[in-house]
């Protein structure tokens, strides 16, 4: 059965990515290390936990947004959610520096979520039209503008910090997969992920029905307005929690749903768990890549790896006509 083959392929890939992160690394002096390293085990396991949780959350967020907006190019970046979290963190860092204080991990969760929510509210406020409520096209346009504005705000806050403080804020913006994730952040992320995953899986057929036109979806009994709000809140909570732990990371939320759909078809009952697996595997793989590639001058930020790998994948999707496949 096609479905069984897809699942097997997916599981094999996921296991391979985790194995790569746990068993392969290149040390700072350039030697390749293969096999289980007992003294590095704690760090690598922590990195796998962070990467898998954040990758799965970003991927699910992307899937929900793509279904909501009927747009295969939608992702947490589109609605400016990651940009909102980044701008909020930069602003918090600036205010903390002025007050001579620091931003704690717990505070960063709250701050990041607040930033994502603000971005979201702005998108919704400008993405609504009176007749159609949450209009997918307007939402995407609003998201692009909001993301740009928030990016500018983040840059402004960074610019106002003295050069010595900019490093930390700038590095946060490049993304990381923490080897020792702060408990608060990881637990919050896992909770949000659990609730969202269960909700998305059980509402899988309704999510399928949302891909029909508005009239058709309503006529088969989809409570469209309520579902749209739930998806918007769920997707942004997922993105905010993942961003609070790992910083803004591009392309995982965009590429993972496409890969899942390619392997297992479009029905959400299958795509939701598949997307979680693909997202987790992708981010763990990006982290493994950064632990393996040569390290002249130190480790490359994981956000750079994601962008360098995700960018070409995105272009390939464009070329294959993914954008044209979904008509409104």
């Amino acid at each position, binding site marked *: 059965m096609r479905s069984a083959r897809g699942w097997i392929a997916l599981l094999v890939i996921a296991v391979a990515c985790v194995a790569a992160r746990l068993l392969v690394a290149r040390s700072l002096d350039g030697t390749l290390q293969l096999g289980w390293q007992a003294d590095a085990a704690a760090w690598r396991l922590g990195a796998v936990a962070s990467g898998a949780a954040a990758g799965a959350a970003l991927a699910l967020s992307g899937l929900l947004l793509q279904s909501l907006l*009927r747009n295969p190019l939608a992702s947490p970046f589109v609605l400016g959610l990651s940009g909102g979290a980044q701008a909020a963190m930069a602003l918090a860092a600036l205010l903390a520096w002025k007050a001579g204080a620091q931003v704690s991990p717990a505070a960063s969760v709250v701050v990041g979520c607040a930033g994502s929510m603000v971005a979201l509210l702005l998108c919704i406020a400008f993405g609504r039209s009176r*007749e159609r409520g949450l209009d997918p096209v307007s939402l995407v346009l609003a998201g692009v503008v909001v993301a740009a504005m928030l990016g500018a705000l983040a840059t402004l806050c960074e610019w106002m910090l003295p050069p010595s403080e900019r490093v930390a804020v700038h590095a946060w913006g490049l993304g990381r997969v923490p080897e020792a994730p702060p408990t608060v952040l990881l637990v919050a992320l896992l909770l949000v992920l659990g609730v969202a995953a269960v909700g998305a899986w059980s509402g899988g*057929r*309704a999510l*399928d*029905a949302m*891909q*029909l*036109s*508005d*009239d*058709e979806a*309503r*006529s*088969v*009994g*989809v*409570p*469209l307005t309520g579902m749209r709000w739930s998806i918007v809140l769920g997707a942004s909570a997922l993105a905010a929690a993942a961003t609070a732990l790992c910083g803004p990371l591009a392309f995982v939320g965009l590429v993972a749903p496409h890969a899942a*759909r390619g392997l297992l*078809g*479009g*029905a959400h009952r299958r795509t939701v768990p598949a997307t979680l697996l693909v997202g987790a595997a992708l981010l763990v793989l990006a982290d493994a890549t950064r632990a393996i590639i040569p390290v002249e001058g130190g480790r490359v930020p994981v956000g750079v790896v994601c962008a360098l790998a995700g960018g070409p994948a995105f272009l390939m999707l464009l070329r294959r006509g993914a954008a044209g*496949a*979904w*008509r*409104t």
Partner: protein
Amino acid sequence: MTLQARDMSIRMGAFELGPVSVAFEPGRVHGVVGPNASGKTTLVRGVCGLQAIQSGAITLAGVPVHAMAAAERAARIAFVPQRSVMPPALRVGEVVALGRLRMQRDPQAVERSLRQVGLLEREMDRVDALSAGQSHRVAVARMLAQLAPTTQLVVLDEPTASLDPAWSASVARVARACADRGCVVIVATHDFGFLGACCDQAILMAEGAVRALGPVATVANPESLSALFGAPFAWAHGIAAQPVAMPRW
């Protein structure tokens, strides 16, 4: 189980429909005809509860349509729009099964519906591999899968626009069967063969108002239709059991 529209008026941008007061009887196929932008689609969407109304009331068997919850509406009303959107990456069978979103899963019902529209052998194909006409038949099949003992209203918006004559006739049979089950059936159409062959009642609309209402044979005559469309009509024989008014070229 009558669908009653009382002083219903709808405003969409600059377009105003109504006020319209019509009673749609169960067991009858009602054909709504009119020129482009006369308000046919607005009317049928309004009576389904898919379009907000500015004033008046629409009740189905006494229950206000716009007050129905999503699940209740799905149980009572089945709708096929003029242009359906097919979810990419889903298979034909999965799309048809969406009609039963709020009901018990029933693979047999899905199979039956696909057989009725002649697409059973395409059940496992992706919907984006189908032609426009085939996609529309899938939408009709979805509506068929949605039919249940609780269904009271079936609405089709220009169902034969993208179908060839064989499948148009099939849709006519579907509409007839629904009416025979006791549903109210409303079809907005430009297809005068369909109107004459399948519909019991005709509703003529122009510029957002109902101009005439009554049995097809009396209301849908060449004189009224010519006045409505501003194009010549004539009686055509041999198309259906009774003469049918058709546009004259």
